[in-house]
């Protein structure tokens, strides 16, 4: 069994064991098994990085065997520079989420932990699948655990949020399913993604396929104007659910653009690039303004996610090295930062049971350690140099200026909005005199929360100060992707 298979199936297996383990009277055992499972899964992904051949654009750690003979569906796994970092990121966030739930989740602990571990394995499957049907199976299967996580452990309006999440994203991916089957027939009976990359397609077929994929991935990213599910879902989801949703699940969509839309339909991608760029710039500006007026912290961070993911899709459709690399770096950075932001809100929510900004004020007086962490993450969210948030956005803006000054200028001005809503929230929640008696009684973070936040803080700082390990691995793959996309596939 290959490394990628282990990375996928070990967390799923641990999750299945947890589900079978049963009742809440064994919650202590369940938590430890979950933590061991998450850490083991993370350790499995380490050799992926250490064993990765940096200068190669080829797929590595490939596993390829027949899965469903009837439709020639293959269990075909592999990573290149584009997908490599997303896999450890997924496993890492799962560890953090398991720690974050330690004392907070007391009901049906085994199902909570099991769902997150299974979800982690499924998402790693999405990032490593090289067969269209295998990709789709993993992509869709992630909906089931997330639906249950939101619905069981969510807030007061959780049922609405769970349905909205499931149906909204299912709608997009069903159209992609038709596209996949169409490509299977067009390729003479193959679901192999790399074969599809070479398949000549007419302009009209490319346009239809492009929009079928767009429906699936744009909803998942989410791009304006199909982003409306995200704030509703984030507000109701439990802290861990929000963290995984923002950190990893949104990247499933962005990753889909790189793996499907751009290489399979390059001509349509070029033709509709301006359309996508527009849809990316709108949220950076408009959604930034929307974020500013939110009263609910989680909603604010959710809108900020939409704005940050706008940089990712913008970077992709600039079709140059810097833009695509920057967008991928931004995907990883946003994974760390958004997870951290949601976990910070979770820390406050566990104490005050409120997410309203107005209910806080002066938290720094009673929780100084926590406020320091929060400041770091807020700074990263604004894209301060030296933090992870800076690298990717800066690369994308440079790339945009190269293509067109005004696109670059608009993208850069989005950073101002980002700083405005992030810092204003920080001021209202953390600074000043304690806002009310509840804030005066707050207790600072315990060692578990300290561990969880410092893991993320280290990641955010390392990536900000020394992004080379992240950018180096993707150079060859990005160059090859762009070379491929530059060539017309019209027959």
């Amino acid at each position, binding site marked *: 069994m290959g490394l990628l298979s282990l990375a996928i199936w070990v967390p799923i297996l641990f999750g299945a064991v947890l*589900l079978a383990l*049963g009742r809440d009277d064994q919650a202590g055992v369940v938590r430890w098994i979950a933590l061991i499972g998450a850490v083991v899964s993370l350790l499995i992904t380490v050799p992926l990085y250490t064993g990765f051949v940096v200068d190669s654009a080829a797929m590595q750690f490939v596993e390829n065997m*027949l*899965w*469903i*003979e*009837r*439709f020639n569906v293959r269990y075909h796994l592999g990573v290149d520079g584009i997908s490599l970092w997303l896999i450890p990121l997924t496993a890492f966030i799962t560890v953090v989420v398991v720690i974050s739930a330690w004392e907070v989740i007391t009901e*049906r602990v085994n*199902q909570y932990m099991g769902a997150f571990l299974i979800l982690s394995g499924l998402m790693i499957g999405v990032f490593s699948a090289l067969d269209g*049907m295998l990709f*789709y*199976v993993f992509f*869709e*299967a992630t*909906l*089931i655990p997330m*639906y*249950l996580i939101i*619905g*069981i452990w969510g807030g007061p309006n*959780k*049922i609405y949020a*769970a*349905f909205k999440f*499931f*149906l909204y994203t*299912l*709608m997009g991916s*069903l*159209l992609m*399913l*038709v596209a996949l*089957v*169409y490509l*299977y*027939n067009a390729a003479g009976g193959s679901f192999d993604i790399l074969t599809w990359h070479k398949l000549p397609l007419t302009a009209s077929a490319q346009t239809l396929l492009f929009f079928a994929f767009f429906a699936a991935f744009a909803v998942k990213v989410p791009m304006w104007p199909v982003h409306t599910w995200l704030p509703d879902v984030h507000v109701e989801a439990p802290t861990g659910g929000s963290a995984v949703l923002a950190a990893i699940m949104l990247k499933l969509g962005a990753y889909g653009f790189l793996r499907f839309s751009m290489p399979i339909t390059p001509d349509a991608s070029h033709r509709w690039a301006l359309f996508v760029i527009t849809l990316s710039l709108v949220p950076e500006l408009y959604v930034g303004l929307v974020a500013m007026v939110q009263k609910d912290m989680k909603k604010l961070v959710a809108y900020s996610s939409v704005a940050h993911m706008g940089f990712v899709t913008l970077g992709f459709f600039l079709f140059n090295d810097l833009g695509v690399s920057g967008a991928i770096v931004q995907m990883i950075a946003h994974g760390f930062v958004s997870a951290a932001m949601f976990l910070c809100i979770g820390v406050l929510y566990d104490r005050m049971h409120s997410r309203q900004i107005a209910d806080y004020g002066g938290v720094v007086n009673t929780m100084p350690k926590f406020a320091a962490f929060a400041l770091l993450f807020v700074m990263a969210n604004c894209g301060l140099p030296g933090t992870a948030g800076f690298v990717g956005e800066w690369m994308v803006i440079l790339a945009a200026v190269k293509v067109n000054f005004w696109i670059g200028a608009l993208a850069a001005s989005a950073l101002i909005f980002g700083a405005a809503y992030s810092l204003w929230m920080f001021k209202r929640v953390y600074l000043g005199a304690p806002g009310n008696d509840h804030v005066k009684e707050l207790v600072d973070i315990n060692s578990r929360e300290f561990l969880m936040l410092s893991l993320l803080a280290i990641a955010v700082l390392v990536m900000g100060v020394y992004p080379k390990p992240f950018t180096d691995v993707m150079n060859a793959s990005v160059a090859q992707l762009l070379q491929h996309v530059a060539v017309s596939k019209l027959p």
Partner: protein
Amino acid sequence: MIDNISWVVAYPEILLLIMACVIALVDLGVKTPMRGTTYALSLLTLGALAILLAMYARTGQTVSGFGGMVVTDPMGNWLKCFATLAMMATLVYGRAYAASRDMMRGGELFILSLFSLLGIYVMISGHNFLVIYLGLEMLTLSSYALVALRRDDSRAIEAAMKYFVLGALASGFLLYGMSMLYGATGSLDVSKVMQVISEGSHNKQVLMLGVVFIVAGLAFKLGAVPFHMWIPDIYHGAPTVVTLLVGGAPKLAAFAIVMRLLVEGLLPLAADWQQMMAVLAVGSLVVGNLAAIAQTNLKRMLAFSTISQMGFLLLAFVSGTSAGDHSNATNAYSGGMFYAITYVLTTLCTFGVIMVLSRDGFESEDIQDLAGLNQRSPALAGIMAICMFSLAGIPPLVGFYAKLSVLQGMLASGSGAMVQLAVFAVLMSLIGAFYYLRVVKVMYFDAPVQTAAIEAPADARILLSVNGLMILVLGLVPGGLMALCADAIAGMVR
């Protein structure tokens, strides 16, 4: 008169007939309320038959007997084998349920089930319009009696009356269509009809009228819109075990007669009946999915869900051939066969859960009765959730591959209309996802209303776990069953 009898062709039917009669006689001496002897004998018979049929099917041979009136081929044998297994599962799930509802004063439940299975066998094996009709009548007459088995329950009696009247009407349609076909082609033999039509020496108008009536009759039996009215009432009114007897294994027979009558007998007229199938499919998808949303009764919701699922199944018959080119036939019809088999597997599991949750005097048939099931029994809630996600077509459960197979068959035909129809079908399944998810929501997100302990016999519980696990395992490795269907269909269309 009849040359070339080949008794071997009919061994399973003969064995089943003899055993049904023997069990009826033995049952006279059974006095225990749970009818253990009858139950054991029935299961033993069915088990033996399933093995026999699987052996038949594995030979891969097509043999016709009784002068071409019946045929045994891999498709038929596999369908009969799965129908037998479905009948076994139904009896295991339903015994305790039936016993607590005064339905086991005699052994009718078992004996009528065996006779309805015999009807299914004859329908699947028949290669002559009249033989198929006889099998159909045998199945439906047993089913009428089964629906009315709770003779002091007014709802069941009403359902039985409706079923009988509408079923008789449908049989009339079918018989009328067959007589037209006979008039146009001069034969009741499926292969001869095919031959005459291929040669073109027939009366076109009479033939077309016959085809219309036959398709209408089949649509009735499948429960496709606009011939679906009986389904919700029967599903709702009949005791749950009988609902499963009507809604489980017979779907396999319905698929088989569509194959026999339309594909084996009337393939040259595919251009005509494919259009009718498309209309039926679209209607069923729309009505089934939309009406299911409004239901609060679980059995009624599942009835409408059945209508929409049958609509999806019919899509497999829309794209088999075009302009005399049968190259896509195996592809399309094997998708349909896979769909039918996996649908029955999931339906068994769903109704199995409903029956396990029912108790004396409590039917557990409202969706709200499932509230908080996850807290009462995580295992049962998990099994039911698997069923619902599978019916909604979410991977990695088997229902997804069923939909995939049918969609692939449609898109492989390469016509633009099929692409549009496929997009329509997947959008309809989005609506479908809503009401399946609602059941999951009630089980997982709501607080329990029922607090009584769940009492179910061990055999039903174990089988239910196996059944639920099979939906998941077949979702992870669907290749074997898909290949089986493809091989079975490949021999039929030439």
